[in-house]
């Protein structure tokens, strides 16, 4: 039952964060780029205030998979870098925290661009 609840809350909280994004798209006509920027910045602020960690403890991947989790990771990485390296940490913390996700997207993006051709299946139908 515990395992079920874990997935249930990951689904509900993750779904709810996405639903907020959809409401913003429908009501404000924000472009996808602006939505992504807003969510990362919002996550960073929530992470900085220490309000995001309780959501992660509660919902697990439901909180870490949406881009607000990416933002909270930036805040956490910044905190850890400053604790470790002091002033220099202000300049290294952000990129260190997001390096795994960004590198993965970059490398896999490049590999996909090398291997695949734009299929345009959606337009054919």
């Amino acid at each position, binding site marked *: 039952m515990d395992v079920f609840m874990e997935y249930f809350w990951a689904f509900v909280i993750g779904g709810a964060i996405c639903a907020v994004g959809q409401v913003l798209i429908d009501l404000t006509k924000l472009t996808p780029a602006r939505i992504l920027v807003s969510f*990362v910045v919002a996550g960073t602020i929530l992470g900085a205030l220490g309000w995001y960690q309780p959501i992660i403890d509660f919902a697990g991947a439901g909180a870490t998979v949406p881009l607000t989790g990416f933002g909270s990771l930036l805040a956490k990485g910044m905190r850890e870098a400053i604790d470790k390296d002091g*002033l220099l940490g202000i300049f290294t913390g952000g990129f260190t925290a997001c390096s*795994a996700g960004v590198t993965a997207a970059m490398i896999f*993006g490049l590999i996909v661009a090398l291997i695949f051709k734009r299929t345009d299946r959606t337009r054919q139908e």
Partner: protein
Amino acid sequence: MDISKKEYEQTAKKHAGSSKMYITVPKAFLIGGLICCIGEGLLNMYQYFGIEFDEASAYTSITLVFLSALLTGLGLYERIAKHGGAGTLVPITGFANAVVSPALEFKTEGYVLGTGAKMFIIAGPVIVYGITAAFIYGIIYYIYGLCA
């Protein structure tokens, strides 16, 4: 009915908007929630292998980015995104799609200024403002640390 063209457009737009939201928001909730559940599954799998939460979480992100890149290459992510809306945009898979999709699309403009430059067309601003927000927090945190 005697209504002007402008009134008609406003009414039509209002109704189109509202009836659309009944569909788009639950769809975003459902698909976004499912992606997070896949993430939860991966997170559990990595933790089962004895990896700590933070590291397991990073591996989960990398795996989701990989899956999203693959689906984008196959042209399948866009199909899901047609239904998912923000449900496919807000999770990290959406960030990966925003990198991979232009990387593939602008291949025709070359690997340097096409793929290399255009892959950051959406990810670039995300990184710029994310890092800036973290930087500002860093300054506050550092000064607070000096005072305390």
